[in-house]
């Protein structure tokens, strides 16, 4: 007889607690939201673009005045090293093995016209286009944070890339610790290489952004 009464009381208590908790705000969440708004507003009130990188939700946004212009959803984001400070950071340099080159026009030279039957995406142009952007590259931020953008690898290349991360990063940590230099590494992987190329295209050197793990 006692047992059902106990379970009933326990159930009622649990429901009551849950209802009370639902009504209450999470202080940490409120604090984080306000901190986040403060930092983003500092970027949004200035003309120009900025980026937001949410490591937890695997989302990168290009924004201006609080408006989302473009969103990328990488398939994988991993990070290592010191935590990135939660403040606007400037992208100081974009590095890649082969950097896109601009074409120089020779005055008076006739342009080669595309074949009439060729579809718009199928003919080569004397221009710097998205497809000329590097597929893997590194974005260096002012505080030394390195964001490397990689493409999806298969087979041995995948194994090599995994080894580089799991063995290379701890060794780098040791080296940098000796120099007393806090550095963060973020690796962003896109399954579609064009997404990485679009990111390279859209983020110019000098752009500022926020990187965070929890929000």
């Amino acid at each position: 007889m006692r047992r059902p009464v106990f379970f009933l009381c326990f159930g009622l208590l649990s429901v009551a607690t849950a209802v009370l908790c639902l009504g209450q705000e999470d202080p940490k969440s409120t604090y984080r939201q306000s901190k986040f708004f403060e930092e983003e507003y500092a970027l949004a009130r200035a003309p120009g673009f900025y980026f937001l990188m949410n490591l937890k939700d695997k989302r990168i946004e290009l924004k201006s005045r609080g408006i989302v212009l473009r969103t990328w959803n990488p398939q994988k984001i991993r990070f290592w090293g010191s935590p990135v400070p939660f403040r606007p950071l400037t992208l100081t340099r974009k590095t890649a093995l082969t950097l896109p080159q601009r074409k120089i026009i020779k005055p008076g030279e006739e342009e080669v016209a595309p074949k009439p039957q060729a579809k718009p995406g199928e003919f080569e142009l004397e221009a710097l286009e998205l497809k000329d952007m590097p597929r893997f590259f590194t974005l260096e931020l002012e505080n030394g944070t390195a964001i490397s953008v990689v493409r999806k690898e298969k087979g041995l290349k995948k194994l090599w890339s995994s080894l580089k991360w799991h063995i290379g990063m701890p060794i780098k940590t040791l080296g940098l610790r000796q120099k007393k230099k806090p550095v963060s590494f973020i690796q962003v992987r896109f399954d579609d290489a064009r997404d990485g190329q679009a990111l390279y295209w859209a983020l110019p050197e000098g752009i500022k952004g926020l990187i965070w793990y929890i929000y």
Partner: protein
Amino acid sequence: MNKKISFKLLIPSLKRLSLIGVELACIASVLAVGLGYFLGIREFSGWRKRIFEAPSQADLAKSRATSDALKKKFEKLVPKGVYIVIDTGANSFYLKKGAEIIREGLVSTGSGDILPDPSGKRQWVFDTPRGEYTVTSKVENPYWVKPDWAFIEEGEPIPKNKDDRVVGGELGDYALGFGNGYFLHGTLYTRLLGRNVTHGCVRIGDEDLKFLFKSASIGTKIYIY
């Protein structure tokens, strides 16, 4: 004879020594990677702690007020009416109101090529300027006043008379200016929509241009990235 014997004796000990060396190197690398992992993971835990400090009650009330004030400020930043977004990489445009896309389509933007003046005094980079702009002018049946680079590119002499620079029909039926001589305008080369071919202006197909021209007014925001 003695030398031969000592050399034979030396080989196994050398082998042993090298094996010990390899073993030590392996142990050292495993220890180094392990230590690196240990230190790395200790630092790694900080990623989760970031902006995660527990606030006091006073801080909480302040945070709430700040959030509310900033939300209102953000609302003020967003354009009230329609605005145009141009993606120069994908060569596409979006006419938006808030988060809603009203119309989208293909455009042609800057080729990124460089044209040097044969005199060596100047050069032009044919990029579509990126950033936040506003529609500064709206023109129907626009004429193109060919700039110096258009003549230099074709290897023609630059005319002294301004009238010799005016060309009709090249820019389509409408043009929306956004400063520094840059326009969103029509094109005769519709096959090239979706590609980077222009000298910096944004070319749009006839129907899309007509829609944009009717929807946008002077002051409409244009975001080009």
